């Protein structure tokens, strides 16, 4: 046995590739971003156009609708039409194409005009009267769902096969399966009609009589009181799917070698479940959270109808039945844009917490 020869000095690994290509990379990256943005804009345009066409091909124009309503509320037919056309700045005889061009111009200049039925407000002002309430409820619902869903989901994965897991899996699939509006309707029937413990009628609307909006706890408490049912309703489906997905993700992560290794390393259980299991299991959930936000806002229509919560969903349905074109278009565009932006934000956020994507992104 010969003495081992002194190993030749191991060359230290250089500090990554030379950075000279940096500006080029950045340019490529920029162009990738550009492509994404261009694609998103295209989608938004298409969505806007489809909405425009859908709305304009719906029978009845805003004047006719308002006139009909005034008519059945007491005005003579002629007077109703006159009143409606006094209020609504809409020319039913204008060509759809001219209107479309106008609309496109509005899109480009971010000025979609005023609400037809409420002409003193721009559509954005109009939408903003409602949207925040829905966003509040949906946001709180999703936060609730994330907190409950992720923790329960993780607990399920940890106790896979236990009665807790079985029970929660059933609950989860039940929540995901049954539409949230049915669930919340059932909650109301049981809580209000049968048991009489849920002050449902007081909970309708946004705030209670006499409470004035402002930055004070009374207002927030009251707003929360009114939003509780919507929040729960929005949380229902999301909680179920987060639970199940989190369980699946955690189960998968739990089989990953690095978790076994972490256990073998004798790390404290809390640390393992936090920075080894939790962090990795959450990665696939995050895009779903964004997706849920979009779906929930889109699906707020029925919930708000059932719960009598005057948010974006109610506004949208109102605007559609009034044929308030600008408002509908604006809402859809806002919705579409926020879905697109949400997915962008998720991408960025994922980069922050998943280092693997970052390098891919840079390479991309």
């Amino acid at each position, binding site marked *: 046995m010969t003495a081992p020869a002194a190993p030749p000095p191991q060359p230290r690994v250089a500090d990554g590739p030379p950075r000279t290509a940096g500006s080029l990379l950045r340019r490529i990256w920029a162009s990738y971003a550009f492509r994404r943005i261009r*694609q998103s804009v*295209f*989608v*938004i345009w*298409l*969505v806007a156009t*489809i*909405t425009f066409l*859908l*709305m304009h*091909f*719906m*029978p009845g124009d805003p004047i006719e609708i308002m006139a009909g309503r005034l008519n059945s509320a007491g005005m003579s037919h002629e007077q109703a039409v006159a009143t409606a056309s006094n209020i609504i700045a809409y020319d039913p005889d204008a060509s759809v194409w001219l209107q479309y061009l106008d609309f496109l111009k509005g899109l480009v200049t971010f000025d979609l005009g005023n609400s037809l039925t409420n002409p003193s407000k721009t559509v954005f002002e109009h939408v903003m009267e409602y949207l925040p309430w829905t966003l509040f409820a949906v946001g709180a619902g999703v936060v609730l769902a994330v907190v409950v869903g992720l923790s329960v989901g993780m607990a399920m994965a940890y106790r896979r096969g236990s009665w807790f897991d079985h029970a929660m899996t059933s609950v989860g*699939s*039940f929540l*995901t*399966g*049954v*539409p949230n*509006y*049915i669930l919340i*309707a*059932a909650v*109301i*029937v049981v809580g*209000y*009609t*049968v048991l009489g413990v849920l002050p449902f*009628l007081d909970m309708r609307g946004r705030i209670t009589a006499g409470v004035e909006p402002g930055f004070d706890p009374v207002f927030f408490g009251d707003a929360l009181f009114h939003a509780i049912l919507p929040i729960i309703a929005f949380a229902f489906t999301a909680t179920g799917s987060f639970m199940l997905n989190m369980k699946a993700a955690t189960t998968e992560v739990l089989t990953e070698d690095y978790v076994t290794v972490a256990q073998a390393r004798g790390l404290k259980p809390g640390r393992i479940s936090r920075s080894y299991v939790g962090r990795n299991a959450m990665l696939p959930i995050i895009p779903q959270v964004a997706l849920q936000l979009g779906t929930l806002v*889109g*699906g707020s*229509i*029925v919930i708000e*109808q*059932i719960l009598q919560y005057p948010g974006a969903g109610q506004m*949208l*349905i109102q605007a*559609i039945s009034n044929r308030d074109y600008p408002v*509908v278009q604006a809402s*859809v565009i806002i*919705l*579409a844009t926020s*879905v*697109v932006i949400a997915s962008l934000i998720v991408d960025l956020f994922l980069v922050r917490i998943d280092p693997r994507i970052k390098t891919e992104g840079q390479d991309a």
Partner: protein
Amino acid sequence: MTTTLDPALNAAITKPRKHFRESFLGRLWTGLTRSPAGFAGTVLVLAIVLFSFVGPLVIDQHNPTDTTQIWTSPSAEHWLGTQYEGKDTFTILVNSGAQPIWVGTLAALMATFVAVTLGSVAGYFRGRIDAVLLQLTDVTVTIPQFLLMLAVVAFFEDIPPWGISIVVGSTMWAFLFRSIRAQVMSLKEREFVEAARLQNLGASRIVFREILPNMAGFIFVNFVISVNQAIYAIVGLYVLGLMPSGTPNWGLMIHQSWSQNFYLNPVALPFVVTPLIMIVLFTIGLVTMGRGLDQALNPRLRER
């Protein structure tokens, strides 16, 4: 190599070709019946389907308005009491299931069919069709489902039920399309597909005989889920009061309960709750059935 028939090989030739248990239907059947959950789900679904489709043939359809019988409590004669017109609530409930179920199933069938065909084509051939279809799904996904349905429903004022199926189906295909496409794309890269290509088996055979059977479980489970979702979309349209309503159905009952405040009135409880219960039961049935199927058909769970 010649194909002279070695007598020893005769034994091999005469062997049965395929066991029922190993066929897709067989696996479907075992999947549904083996696990208690899958079995229970299937029974539940079948029960509600029977209730809604056979029930109307069995029970007395004569259900007259009777102003002396408005909102009576459940009794031997009226199992679920009567409703606001004095009609028998149970009879109404029996008649209310068929439409949502068949319309939902039809919608899911159409969505699944479109998604599977387009998804396989897009995933397998990629290229321009894929780009176009993908963009289309982007758009479909971004437009709020209810807006689309609402506009179409308003446009065709008295839309027939199958028309609703089309509308609902067309809002649902996109998600399914994407997952099918993704699956096809990943399956396409699998080595057995490459092996089939190397044997020149032909694109259509590869897509439909090599790739799709591997997704059969996935497709079927998704179909079950789609039925569920389609029913909700339809019921949702009714709940919103956007549908021309003639035939009784669950959604209409819920709509009436809400728009006419029946839910405030304890006497009206059977009328208010039963459609909710039916929907919830049907969902539980479909979901557990789906889970049972998933376990039976998901290759990942099966391979072990």
